[in-house]
């Protein structure tokens, strides 16, 4: 089964009613969720750790760009993933396996459909190869 690790801001889409007891999104089996107070807290190191520990892909989710309950958190992690703000991802990281979704609390259905699409993309990519 394709495994997806979702690192999500707890003020972004409200997944509370969509998680089972193993922190798995009910609609997308294999999609596990770890919540953060703000997406700005997510380290590129954590994204890399997820890919190394068996995830086929990582979904980083924060509030809509322009909106942040604190300040600037989603912009910061977005720039870190895109490589314009340190610390960035390591060079060998497979960027096709990482997506960023910037969704507000009310956009749960958008989240689920985007993740399902991501899973089909990951299936086409095949399993994670050895680190380059």
């Amino acid at each position, binding site marked *: 089964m394709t495994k997806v690790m979702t690192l999500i801001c707890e003020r972004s889409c409200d997944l509370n009613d969509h998680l089972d007891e193993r922190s798995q999104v009910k609609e997308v089996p294999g999609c596990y969720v770890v919540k953060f107070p703000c997406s*700005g*807290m997510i*380290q*590129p*190191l*954590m994204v890399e750790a997820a890919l190394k520990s068996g995830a086929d892909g990582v979904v980083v989710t924060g509030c*809509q*760009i322009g909106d942040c*309950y604190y300040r600037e958190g989603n912009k910061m992690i977005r720039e870190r993933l895109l490589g314009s703000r340190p610390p960035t991802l390591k060079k060998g990281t497979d960027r096709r396996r990482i997506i960023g979704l910037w969704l507000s*609390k009310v956009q749960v259905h958008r989240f689920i459909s985007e993740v399902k699409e991501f899973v089909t993309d990951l299936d086409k990519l095949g399993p994670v190869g050895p680190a380059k």
Partner: protein
Amino acid sequence: MALPKVYTDSLAYFCLKAEDATNQILTSKYNPFYYHGALPQFFLWVLFLSGLLLFAYYIPTIDNAYSSERLINAFTSVDFITNQIPFGAVVRGIHRYAGDAMVLTIILHALRVWWTDRYRQYRWLQWFSGIVLLGFVFFIGQTGYYLVWDQRSLVLTRMTCYAFEALPVIGPGLKAWFLNGEAITNLTLSNYLFIHIGLSFFLLSGLWLHYVRMARPVVTPPPVINYALMAILMFVVFMYPITMDRMANLTQQPSNFDIDWFFLWPYAMLTSWDPTVFWLAIVGVTVFVSLLPLPFLNNNLSGNVLAPVDAAEVVGSKCVGCQLCDKDCPYEAIEMVPAPAGSKFKLLATVLPHRCSSCGLCVGACAFDAIDLPDMPDAEVTKKIKTLLAQS
């Protein structure tokens, strides 16, 4: 008392839905909802510039004993600006409607931070200073209406004196300060001009308190939004040209006047309310709104609201002094200090707990696992990620 939680949640829901709909049309980069704090600041600059032009021709007196040929006073100078100076009426219109727009955008700003729960705990100073500054905005705007010195200005002046007289202890002093003496004289108008302009600069410097601690405050909307706002403003200026009553006549007691509901609503209240009830209502509402962040008025809260949140903590042995957290912290809560003797590095990050919002952005900025939120160390997050992926 306070709004039930389900209701405040639905207000937040309403905000997010409205913003999402706006994003569909304008994209998040040009969504005015995301610059709700910068919009009043933009109108403040418009007011300063248009006010400077008006100030050039304004004469703050009610009569001029030295000029026998033609009466030169506040009213005739405003009349001169309106009818003789090229585009004078337009500048007056901009000054008036930009003031209205400033009040409107401040209210939108306040409602949004309230409904989306961004006004309490470490933000209490922003909330409280905002209320005080809004009070100043109302008073500055009202003095603008006294300055025209038409019949309306006279009614407003007399109503203000009437309201001040109802105040115990400080009432007579306030009235004497307001009129700059015991009766309406030339000195009254110069005092109005001083209050109007002096308090505006006080407002501008008071905004420092509103912005303090914000790293990179968003005080300017993108130019496209500014142009759009100016276009809307000019449309209103030309569609609803600004009016003037007859010159104030101290021997008359005018009673009817047009009300600008953004600024003159207290006078509408005063026409039907007892002045004591009026002051109790004003003070009561202000105190209630100021205390909104307190737990007993707030169902979203538990625990002590005035205590700082659990601030981030630096792991001294891991910090290399790279300053990344210091640069990224949105609340300027990180201070770089010289590293202790014997350290390999020059600097050490420290957290100012009273500024910290516990958002964890510094954790994301650290490539050395050297800073942690106390209830969510990054080592545990990584462990959780690995555990979740290891199952099944």
